[in-house]
Structure formats: C-alpha cells, structure tokens
C-alpha cells in the first residue's frame, strides 16, 4: 500500500462502497475498476485447499487480449491498406495505419462500453463481482466484424450476446455459446447486408464517395470462391503461391482481425506458451479442416471443392476462430479426449459448411457455435466411457 493512489482509493473512496456506506450498492462496480488498477488485496482464507493457478482470472483474460493485439494492429493497418488500394490512392505507412485505427477503434470502444455496461448492471442487480469474461469478448467482437458495420449495430449485438448468450445462463463461466460468436451470428442473421457483400470489408466502402479503382473487388476470397468459383481458381491457378502468401500475411479484404494468419499465429504462440489456450483443440481443429479439405479435393465435384486443403486454413475466419474462439475454456469441451473430438469436428464441419452452403461462406462461425452446443454431450460420453473402462478394470481385479 505504498502507492499513494492505492492508499487514496483504499482509505478515502472505498469506505463509501463498504457495507453501510452510501454507495454500498455499487460495490461490484467499484471493485471491478479497482482490480483493473491493482492486485486485489483479499486472499483466500487458510482453510481453502483448492489452489488452481498462480494467476487469477483477470490476468488470464488480459493475456488473451494481449494475444489478440497483433491481429488488432494488423487489422487496423489492413483496413487502411484496403481503403487506399480500393480508391487507388498512394499513402504512407502511417497514413494507412492511422486511417484504419480511426475506423477500428470506435468499434472496440463501443463493444467494450456496451458489454461492460450490461455486465455492471447485472453485477449490481445480482450483487456479485463484475466478472472478467467480457474483457476478451469485448475485443473479439470487433475483430470478427467487417469494418464498415454501423456502431449501433455493434452495440445492439453486444448487448444481445451478453444478455441472451451469457447472463441468462448465470453470467461468466456459465455460458453455453461463445459470446463473441453469438454477437456475430446475431449480426449475420439480423443485418445480412452489413455482414456480406463486397463493400463492407473495405474502410469507407459503404460510403458512396469512395470511387473504386478499376478491377479491384472488395469481396472476400470466400465470397469470390462461392459466387464464381471458377474465377477464383483460374486466378489462383496463375498465381497460387501469391494468393496463399497474401492470405497468409493478410492483405486481403475480410473481417478486421481475421485476415492475417501470421498475426493470429503470433497470438496463438502467446496463448500456447502461457498455457492459456488448449493446444489439443487448435491442433485437432487444424487437422479436421485439413482432412475435410483433402476429402473435397478427392471428390472435386465443383471448383470450390478443388481449392487445396492448405488454402482453407488461411482464408476466411478459420484461423481466427480456431485460435481465439474454439479454445474459449467455458464453451469448449472440458475433458482431454473431448477436446480432440471437439476441435476436430469444428475444423471438419467448418470447411464442410463453407463449401456446401454458399449462403453461409463463414462456416467456421456456425461450426463453432454448433460444437459449443455439442460440447457437454461429448464430455458426457467421454466420462461415461471412462467410468465403464475403470469399472471393467476393478471387476477384473476383483474376479
């Protein structure tokens, strides 16, 4: 308590929120803000024997947010890059980045403000602490949206996702579905014109004043692949490595955070080194997608099916979904074997939906949501199998 700010908070401000203080009701709100700034002073009493980890929830969540920063920064730059590319203007690196930052930051601010607002209200009504879960969701939501989405839609979707996706089930840690994907799915079905097409992905694209340079198209690779698949493959046939590399680096139109597989891989590395995300889910997810891609290659009934399996890993939201969303510890499968099954099916179904259903190019979103719902079932069977196996063993010993 050597820090004067901390002292001031503890001694002057906090008593107002303690029991009997005049702002007693708002203790959860105060507590949430204080623990942002300082390590909480309260510790588990000596009776507890359930040490789970040295870092608390808030630090875990902050690590995930940090892991998303490369994708965020790249997304900002890419927003500007796509804008200047589409309008055919020259721009310096800083101009590009600043243009994108001005486009992206409002989305982030709105998402956090709306989501935390709802969290605070529910914390005060239910008299519990503001849970940290939204720190991650609030960053994921803007990253998985097109840059031109109106701010009020982001706010509406965030409120919907936090209330219907999370609070009705009992708040952070109880949600069945990934909150950020719930928000995205809401927008996808509620305002399809703002979630697909060839304008929303480009900074300033919905603005009538931006004149497109000749030959540039703002559609995502997935949309191009579904709409006129032959064009995609023909163009790719000429410069396949190019298309793979640009998708890998991320200089393509797409949702803000998902275009650059490289930036996402940096995030994935942070998550894996710190042990926060499950490598089992990531690994089996990539495997699942690859297997499905290979199967389609063997089948080859239409040009989209002939897209090489490794391309599937870098286009669309696959990498972003599998790294940041599928590994959400709350909505994923909990058992070790379950995680392999869960991840594999996400990759498998994601590519399947993507190729089979042209109406839903972003199959990975639906695949993750679907497997979120299935995760408890997977866990159930894994546990049942385990019980049976051990029962057999004890029977054998007893006999």
């Amino acid at each position: 308590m050597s820090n004067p700010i901390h002292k001031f908070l503890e001694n002057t401000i906090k008593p107002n929120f303690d029991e009997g203080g005049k702002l007693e009701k708002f203790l959860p709100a105060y507590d949430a803000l204080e623990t942002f700034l300082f390590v909480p002073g309260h510790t588990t009493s000596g009776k507890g024997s359930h040490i789970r980890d040295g870092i608390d929830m808030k630090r875990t969540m902050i690590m995930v947010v940090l892991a998303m920063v490369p994708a965020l920064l790249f997304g900002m730059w890419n927003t500007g890059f796509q804008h200047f590319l589409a309008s055919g203007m020259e721009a310096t690196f800083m101009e590009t980045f600043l243009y994108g930052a001005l486009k992206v930051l409002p989305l982030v601010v709105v998402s956090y403000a709306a989501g935390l607002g709802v969290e605070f209200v529910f914390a005060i009504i239910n008299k519990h602490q503001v849970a940290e879960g939204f720190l991650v969701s609030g960053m994921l939501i803007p990253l998985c949206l097109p840059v031109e989405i109106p701010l009020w839609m982001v706010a509406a979707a965030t409120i919907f996702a936090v209330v219907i996706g999370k609070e009705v089930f009992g708040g952070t840690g109880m949600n069945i579905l990934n909150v950020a994907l719930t928000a995205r799915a809401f927008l996808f079905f509620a305002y399809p014109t703002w979630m697909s097409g060839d304008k929303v992905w480009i900074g300033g694209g919905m603005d009538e004043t931006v004149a497109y340079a000749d030959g540039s198209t703002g559609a995502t690779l997935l949309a191009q692949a579904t709409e006129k698949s032959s064009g995609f493959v023909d163009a790719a046939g000429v410069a396949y490595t190019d298309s793979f590399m640009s998708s890998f680096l991320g200089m393509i139109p797409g949702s803000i955070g998902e275009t650059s597989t490289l930036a996402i891989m940096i995030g994935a590395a942070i998550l894996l080194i710190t042990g926060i995300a499950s490598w089992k889910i990531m690994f089996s997810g990539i495997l699942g997608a690859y297997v499905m891609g290979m199967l389609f290659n063997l089948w080859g009934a239409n040009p989209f099916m002939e897209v090489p399996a490794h391309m599937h890993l870098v286009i669309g939201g696959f990498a972003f979904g599998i790294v940041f969303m599928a590994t959400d510890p709350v909505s994923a499968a909990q058992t070790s074997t379950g995680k392999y099954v869960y991840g594999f099916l996400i990759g498998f179904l994601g590519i399947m939906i993507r190729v089979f259903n042209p109406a839903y190019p972003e199959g990975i979103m639906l695949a993750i949501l679907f497997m979120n719902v299935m995760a408890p079932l997977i866990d159930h069977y894994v546990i049942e199998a385990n019980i049976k196996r051990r029962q057999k063993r004890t029977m054998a010993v007893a006999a």
Partner: protein
Amino acid sequence: MSETAEATAVVKEPREPLFSSKNKRLLSDPMNDDNPITIQVLGICSALAITVQVKQAVVMSLSVLVVMIGANLIVSLLRNLIPSRVRIIVQLVIVAALVILVDQVLKAYMYEVSKQLSVFVGLIITNCIIMGRLEAFALNNKPWPSFLDAVGNAAGYGWILIAVAVVRELFGSGKLYGFQVIPDAFYDFGYFNNGLMILPPMALITVGIIIWIQRSKNTKLIEEN
C-alpha cells in the same frame, strides 16, 4: 343417483354467484400463474410460426378463443354422456368441426390472412392447450366455469402471442398491425430492420424473455433445485 344423495348435494352447494372468487381465478390464472404458453409450455409451435405480424397473431388468438369457448361449452354440456373410453375421439370431432367453421369464416371474410395462416388454422385441432383444457377441465365441470376457463386460457394464449408478435413486427419490419410505426427519419439516419426477428428462433427467444420477466416478478413460480 339416489334422492338422498341429490338432496345433500344441493344443500352443500348453495348457488354460486356468477363471478365468485373461484370463477374469477379461472379467468385470471391462465393469464399469469398458469399461463398455457409460458408456464405449461403448450401450443409453442403456433406461437413460433405465426407471430411475425400482429395481425396474424390477433386473428389466430381470436380463432383459438372461438374454438375453445365452443369446444369447452359443448364438451361440458355433454360431459355426462360421453363414454370415457372414446372421449378423446369425441373431443377431436367437436374441435375439428369448430375449426372447420372458423376456417371457412376466415376464408370467406379474411382471405389474405387466412392464406398467411395457412395450415396453422387447421392445426388448432391438435393444439395441446385446447385438448388439455377439455381433458382437465370441461369434462369435469359445469358449462359456466368451463366457459370462463376457455376464455381465460385463450386470453392467456392470445396475449403472449400478441406480445411476441408486437416485438417481432416492430423490430423485424418496423410496423405494427401492418402500419409503419418507425418513422422514415430513422431509416434515413441509418436504422435497419432486424432480419433475425423475422426468423423463428427469435420467437423462441422472445417467449424466453417473457418467461424470464414473469418469473422474476412472480417469485412463487421459481422452482427450487
């Protein structure tokens, strides 16, 4: 029935006033504490299917009201004549006859709405609420309480239907009962209708929200576990 038994019955039951507190509860309970949709979770399919527009919901509610009153009254009048072994089929015949009447009236006077409601008018026959009330109430009660029970349950069904339809039509198409309510200025300002509201899942979520509000207001509905 022997004479003595009849006499005692008459002595025991003095004539009940038409709106005794018991009878009033028959009307009010289904509106809230015993709502067919939100508490008993019956008749959900029609609640999901025809709540895109308020007009459809109103017509549907009225149709159910008419069928239910008719069926409850007829079954209640016949309750001592129906052999209990074949009672379900007798009830079905009564309900089906009434539904066909309603369907014909709708076709004659409200052709457009009747086309939109399409199969769901016919499906009133299998509406669990009606069958449930016939089985649980009309078979054992006199015509007047049965009538009140029918009105109460149909109203309880109807208000949920209309409430859901109001939410869905307002946010889904910016209209109420077919009239535009959200002013054009909003649209010019960048407002958009919510396409998800038109889709059936949103009806389920809206019903869920109504159940949530109802249970948080009426704490005796909360189950312990």
